[in-house]
């Protein structure tokens, strides 16, 4: 049967409020007597606080509370908003006596105005015992290195003495044997940098006590349920005393999968009884929220003359900064989301080390380790092709995974633990490559080095997969109730952070129940009201949360059909159709509206509320696929790389909302272009970030954007809602390798680190000459 709502461009259901500036974000509401929280940060990369004197600050008339490690709970926990049991180490407290990076918070002031809080910060006297520091992960692994964490109480760290948070080792076959059998072997090391998510709304949290003394936390988060759990853990307050409300979120991209303001706000409210507010400035967002894990990745590929890979080996050294949040799981994804793509290699090995240093704390960031992995892998694939005199397209076609196939990596490596066996359900990759190649004119342009003065053109490509949710771990759930007019209220725990998930949910429910999406009222995540959902991460929104609302909608539909059958006085409802708000029996041509059914069940007969419930957890994590193609122009005189045209051919299963899907694809690409060309943390000698603002840390603006063409190749995933897979993350993975490959095509140079700044390009040109 043809879909009525799925696959259609339904307007984003929250867009009207957003374009008209209604007060929907966390910080758009103001509460009486609210206290404003401001933080004091460590100026040292590694130091023990010997003494901290807050007495002068406390004397200021408008100051209500000053927090330090001395008067806050010393509960060692992880700030990573992940599922349970938590895979990240317990290595931090709300405030630590030992501070480990410039930007770690030392104290907080809660005062009646922001200005007073700011004033008070200046009066806090801290005596530091400054310790030696370590910034380089290779250095940090040495026996002689500074130990970033020495405390006995930390948990979940493999070897604190070597600063080694996690070590991953996964093997299939025998790579050494594979390299021996190969005709060519290529090895290349590539380094990726610290970068920031830069959601335009910074982290913001407001907390207050409700009339029953419970703590309400209104916060810009991707993970309301994990916020509730972790705040309960850190403050030793029963979970039942905490309510987390997620308003509209001004972007997250992973940075808001972290509990960094909520516990402080809640603590202030608990201590003072007053509402509290903490909002990061842009600078704080850079220095003290989360970043992307920089990695140094080495990929070695062996291949036969015919292009067939015999072995792939990947080693990733991940810098997890001062704290290990998401360290293990991001590094897992560096291998698990990349290596299965080339399953033709019988011998595969992935090794990763996650290491502490005295630098800012990386966390979850769109692409989640796969971005780093592909940055290197997809350039090495091109290097192998070059050596074999094969083109980049053919080599990928020879080696990529196909429908019905699996990879040993799927089972061996999940997120921080073993994975699950998975078979690919989609045969789209060749199509993606062909369509993309045609659109960019790959074979017409590749190797041509078309020149215009000092500017040379080049084309490059890269291939990718990702996942959809974390299999056998991630769960979402939903409750749907039927109203008198045939509309429904959907309560689900999923977290729309701007991606349009609420709209996708309305479409899924509308499709199942045969009603218009605007008759579906979606209630944003509120831990008191909506049922559980793991939150917005791991590309799971449409797949897991969408799966949950679909299950709940089917449950409600079955109840509706039962009532209709009784009304029609028929024996079974198997062939009933739900359409335009009616239940129709094609046999008898009888027809009843959902509104009549609701009136009947609520007021007239067998009074009861029809309510559907459903949960969804997946056994697998069907990967979306994407082939990226870029044409660039690089100026040999300035070293500036300008992307001219970017084509992304994407298989994300069945598309629920084409316009929103395009938005996810283009948004991720532009984010990736920023990461590839300009975005990076610059550090001073003491480990201080030197460019914590939008002047010096350049994210793309409207004029930096090339022509971008997303091409969607629809497939059907049997496990996803209406056949859908994920799309949110995968397309950030392409710009580094695709532009890198295009740069090689244009000038025959390969850089070994991102971002591809003009200085590096010029240096490489000079070295080549």
């Amino acid at each position, binding site marked *: 049967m043809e879909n009525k709502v799925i696959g259609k461009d339904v307007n984003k259901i929250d867009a009207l409020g957003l374009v008209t500036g209604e007060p929907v974000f966390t910080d758009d509401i103001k509460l009486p007597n609210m206290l404003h929280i401001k933080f004091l940060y460590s100026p040292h990369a590694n130091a023990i606080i010997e003494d901290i004197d807050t007495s002068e600050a406390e004397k200021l008339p408008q100051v209500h509370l000053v927090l330090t490690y001395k008067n806050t709970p010393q509960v060692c926990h992880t700030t990573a908003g992940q599922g349970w049991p938590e895979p990240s180490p317990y290595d931090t407290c709300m405030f630590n006596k030992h501070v480990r990076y410039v930007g770690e918070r030392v104290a907080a002031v809660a005062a009646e105005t922001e200005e007073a809080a700011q004033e008070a910060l200046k009066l806090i006297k801290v005596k530091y015992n400054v310790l030696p520091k370590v910034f380089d992960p290779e250095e940090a692994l040495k026996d002689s290195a500074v130990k970033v964490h020495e405390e006995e109480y930390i948990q979940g760290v493999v070897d604190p003495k070597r600063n080694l948070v996690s070590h991953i080792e996964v093997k299939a076959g025998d790579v050494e044997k594979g390299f021996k059998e190969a005709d060519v072997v290529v090895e290349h090391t590539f380094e990726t940098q610290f970068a920031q998510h830069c959601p*335009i709304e910074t982290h913001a949290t407001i907390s207050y006590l409700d009339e029953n003394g419970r703590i309400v936390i209104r916060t810009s988060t991707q993970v309301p349920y994990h916020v509730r759990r972790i705040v309960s853990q850190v403050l030793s307050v029963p979970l039942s005393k905490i309510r987390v409300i997620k308003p509209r979120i001004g972007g997250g991209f992973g940075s808001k999968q972290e509990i960094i303001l909520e516990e402080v706000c809640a603590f202030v409210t608990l201590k003072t009884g007053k509402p509290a507010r903490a909002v990061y400035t842009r600078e704080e967002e850079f220095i003290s929220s989360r970043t992307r894990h920089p990695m140094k990745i080495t990929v070695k590929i062996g291949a036969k003359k015919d292009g067939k890979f015999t072995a792939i080996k990947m080693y990733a050294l991940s810098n997890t900064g001062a704290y290990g949040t998401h360290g293990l799981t991001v590094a897992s994804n560096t291998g698990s989301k990349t290596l299965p793509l080339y399953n033709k290699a019988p011998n595969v090995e992935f090794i990763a080390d996650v290491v502490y240093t005295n630098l800012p704390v990386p966390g979850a960031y769109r692409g989640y380790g796969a971005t780093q992995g592909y940055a290197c892998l997809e350039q090495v694939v091109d290097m192998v092709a070059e050596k074999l005199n094969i083109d980049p397209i053919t080599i990928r076609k020879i080696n990529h995974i196909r429908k019905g196939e699996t990879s040993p990596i799927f089972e061996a490596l999940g997120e921080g633990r073993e994975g699950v066996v998975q078979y690919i359900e989609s045969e789209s990759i060749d199509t993606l490559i062909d369509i993309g190649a045609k659109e960019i004119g790959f074979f017409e342009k590749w190797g041509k080095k078309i020149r215009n003065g000092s500017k040379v053109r080049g084309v490059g490509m890269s291939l990718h997969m990702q996942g959809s949710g974390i299999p056998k771990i991630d769960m979402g759930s939903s409750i749907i109730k039927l109203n008198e007019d045939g509309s429904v209220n959907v309560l689900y725990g999923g977290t729309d952070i701007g991606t349009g998930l609420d709209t996708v949910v309305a479409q899924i429910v509308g499709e199942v129940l045969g009603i218009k999406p605007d008759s579906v009222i979606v209630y944003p995540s509120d831990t008191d009201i909506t049922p559980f959902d793991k939150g917005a991460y791991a590309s799971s929104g449409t797949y897991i949360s969408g799966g949950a609302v679909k299950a709940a909608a089917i449950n409600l539909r079955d109840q509706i059909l039962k009532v209709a059958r009784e009304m029609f006085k028929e024996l079974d409802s198997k062939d009933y159709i739900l359409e335009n708000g009616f239940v129709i029996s094609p046999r008898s041509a009888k027809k009843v509206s959902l509104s009549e059914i609701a009136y009947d069940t609520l007021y007239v007969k067998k009074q009861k509320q029809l309510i559907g419930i459903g949960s969804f957890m997946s056994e697998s994590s069907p990967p979306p696929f994407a082939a990226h193609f870029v044409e660039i122009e690089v100026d040999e005189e300035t070293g500036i790389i300008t992307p001219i045209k970017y084509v992304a051919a994407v298989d994300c299963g069945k598309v629920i909302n084409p316009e929103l899907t395009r938005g996810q694809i283009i948004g991720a690409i532009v984010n990736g272009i920023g990461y590839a060309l300009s975005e990076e943390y610059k550090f001073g000698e003491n480990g201080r970030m030197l460019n914590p603002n939008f002047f010096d840390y350049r994210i793309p*603006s409207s004029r930096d954007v090339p022509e971008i063409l997303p091409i969607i190749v629809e497939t059907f995933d049997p496990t996803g809602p209406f056949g859908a897979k994920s799309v949110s993350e995968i397309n950030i993975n392409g710009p580094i390798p695709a532009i890198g490959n295009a740069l090689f095509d244009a000038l025959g140079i390969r850089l070994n680190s991102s971002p591809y700044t003009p200085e590096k390009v010029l240096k490489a040109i000079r070295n080549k000459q």
Partner: protein
Amino acid sequence: MKVHYKINEKDYSFEIHPGKVLLDVLRENGFTEVKGNCYMGTCGACTVIINGAPKTSCTVLAAQVNDAEIITIKGIGSVLKPHPLQEAFIKKGAVQCGYCTPGTILSAYALLQKNPNPTDEEIKRAIDGNLCRCTGYVQQIEAIKFAIKLLTEEK
């Protein structure tokens, strides 16, 4: 000190601290449709129209623009009667998180007031100061072009 503004065609007087920037004064007085975060004039989220020109309200002292005429996103349309630009942003998928949206729409609005038929390049330049981390700008530009169409049809 006391300042007076005409905001969205209504008169207001506020008692302010002379050092405050307009963004804070607006938000503190309930105009939370004006967003902010960088306070350096680099993100554009705080854009409002002051005496006809789009300005980042975080870099303007409130005292400095005493008696100014200010337009916020609420001054061009509402949930009950959205402006064609607002409709177009909804229709073309140009809104993701929506945090940058009021500022971007106001920059586009100011452009169309002066130049009802801009080129792509002029559109890009008009919203160049409005950073958006979600959309990648393509749909925003499409939306502005669509709004131009809607506005011409309206005439």
